């Protein structure tokens, strides 16, 4: 009996330790301000990424990999290299999507879906989504070496796509390290950023929309 009690106590302590300390409202506010300040100072960024889509219906996952580049104020290149080639470039008003068989240039003024996709990708990667109080309800949790921010969409269009978005920031430099997109059908897409390079020169040509 004593052994069982010790085991239960040990597992409770472990789970509490991994969950990190509970944060007060003021602490949460301070962390969000800190993360916002960090995202505001972000001029450019590049990283490689690994994206895993967890498919609930099939209990399966799909892994893809690639590279991303960002440059202020609103330029993003999201490039998949495996298992498929797919390039997504957003340069403010236009989106380019291209693969082996098709290349399209889409005006975001006339295509709301691509505008939303571009906005979500950019705001989550750079962390600016935290400051969009109109778009999300924001909550922060301490997760050991990370700050875990949960965004619950407020707007109808976004609600139709995601039930919540979770962003993980490294405590050491307040930079984003992981993005989790939760869908209504219980699917989840996890994006892990690796080899992050911040505020270094990113070639402007990467954001040029091919003709």
């Amino acid at each position, binding site marked *: 009996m004593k052994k069982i009690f010790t085991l239960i106590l040990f597992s409770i302590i472990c789970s509490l330790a991994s969950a990190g300390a509970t944060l007060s409202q003021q602490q949460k506010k301070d962390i969000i301000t800190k993360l916002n300040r960090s995202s505001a100072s972000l001029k450019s960024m590049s990283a490689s990424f*690994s*994206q*895993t*889509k*967890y*498919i609930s*219906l*099939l209990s*399966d*996952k*799909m*892994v*893809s990999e690639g590279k991303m580049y960002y440059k202020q104020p609103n330029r993003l290149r*999201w490039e*998949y290299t*495996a*298992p*498929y080639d*797919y390039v*997504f470039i957003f340069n403010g008003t236009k989106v380019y*999507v291209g*693969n082996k*068989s*098709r290349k*399209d240039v889409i005006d975001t003024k006339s295509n709301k*879906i691509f505008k939303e*996709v571009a906005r979500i*990708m950019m705001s989550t990667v750079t962390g600016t989504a935290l400051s969009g109080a109109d778009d999300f309800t924001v909550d922060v949790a301490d997760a050991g070496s990370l700050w875990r921010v949960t965004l619950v969409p407020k707007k109808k*269009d976004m609600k*139709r*796509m995601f039930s919540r978005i979770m962003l993980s920031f490294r405590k050491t430099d307040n930079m984003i390290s992981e993005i989790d*997109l939760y*869908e*209504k*059908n219980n*699917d989840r*897409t*996890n994006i*892990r950023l690796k080899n992050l390079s911040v505020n270094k020169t990113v070639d402007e040509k990467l954001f040029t929309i091919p003709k």
Partner: protein
Amino acid sequence: MNAAEPADSCNGTLHRLAFRIETVNACVSGIFVANVSDDRIDGCMFNEFGVSAVDFSYFMKKHKLKLLNVAGFLDKWYIRKVLKNDITFCLHRLFGIPRGKSAKGYEVTQHGDSLTVTNRKRHISYYFSPLENYCVKDDTEE
């Protein structure tokens, strides 16, 4: 995967294909994953970013397809109706299901392992091709 491979030879296995759906003024591309078993096919279609477009279950004996989840921008009764019919036809062609849906109103082209199905009335084309060099990596969680 050979698009015309019979369903019996791939029971309980997962198939991963690249897909593209083209209409007159729109295009959706991404990945199509299907689990084919003796009595049903469960399938998901999602875009390159991982955002789900359609989830469905197809029941072999009844030749019926049930749409389980449809992305907001496609979730209109008239789109669901067309999708239901067209995906059913595509499944019959992809997995060689016997006594499949009539090809009336559809145009089917096969180039090697790639399959193209066109709904002539609605001017919608469905392209499927195998995902090359795909392997599941174990360096991710879960």
